[in-house]
């Protein structure tokens, strides 16, 4: 017997009120990251360890900059959600858990923000 209300069924958000959002975002970002990271690996094979002018001119190419930006965005979303799962699995003290979840959000956004700024600066200003 189904005890859910018709509205609850239509919304499909369950008792946590967020439905499959977390699961879905981890999967969509992971699917996006497969081709993005394959590109990134090839790029780093070609340009890792190369001299400054060569690397900057490659990074300022609009196509490379776009891929770079997308990779950064997909990566920070994916890594934040992944670490969230790890924290929720292993940390049972409520205060520590909340503190780590907030730190996780700050760390991800900080790293992502810095990377995006760097990518855009190289693309627009060299």
């Amino acid at each position, binding site marked *: 017997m189904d005890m859910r209300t018709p509205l609850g069924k239509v919304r499909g958000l369950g008792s946590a009120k967020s439905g499959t959002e977390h699961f879905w975002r981890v999967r969509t970002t992971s*699917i996006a990251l497969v081709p993005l990271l394959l590109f990134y690996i090839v790029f780093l094979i070609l340009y890792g360890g190369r001299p400054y002018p060569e690397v*900057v001119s490659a990074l300022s190419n609009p196509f490379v900059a776009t891929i770079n930006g997308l990779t950064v965005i997909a990566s920070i979303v994916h*890594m934040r959600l992944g670490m969230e799962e790890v924290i929720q699995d292993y940390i049972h003290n409520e205060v520590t858990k909340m503190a780590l979840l907030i730190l996780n959000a700050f760390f991800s956004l900080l790293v992502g923000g810095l990377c995006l700024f760097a990518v855009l600066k190289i693309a627009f200003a060299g």
Partner: protein
Amino acid sequence: MANVTNNRPLSPHLQIYRFIPTMAMSIVHRITGAALYFGTLLVAAWLIAAASGEEHFNQVNWLFGSIIGQIVLLGYTWALLHHLLGGLRHIMWDLGYGFEKEFSTKLAKGNLIASIVLTVVVWAIVLIIR
């Protein structure tokens, strides 16, 4: 009634079960994920240095080119490839395929072997074209 919760039977925990490849690759997937989380700092350092000018870029390049830097980058390459292949296994399972015992065990072993082989291939290409 005070001891009711303490006396409840416990389900057997991890150490009771024989350690099998799918279990090993499951926890390695999580460990490599956590390593990659902090590994993004290396990507950030490289990108920020490239955006900050030649002097900073050369310093970071020198650090990555040192023996310790190269070992860390080798580990990073392996962690990334292992996690990427593990992620593909997860997508397969999410779609409802590949749960058969023998097959999933084979795939767990294949994941480890393929990640090592691909890491060697990537670094071999780097060393050849340098």
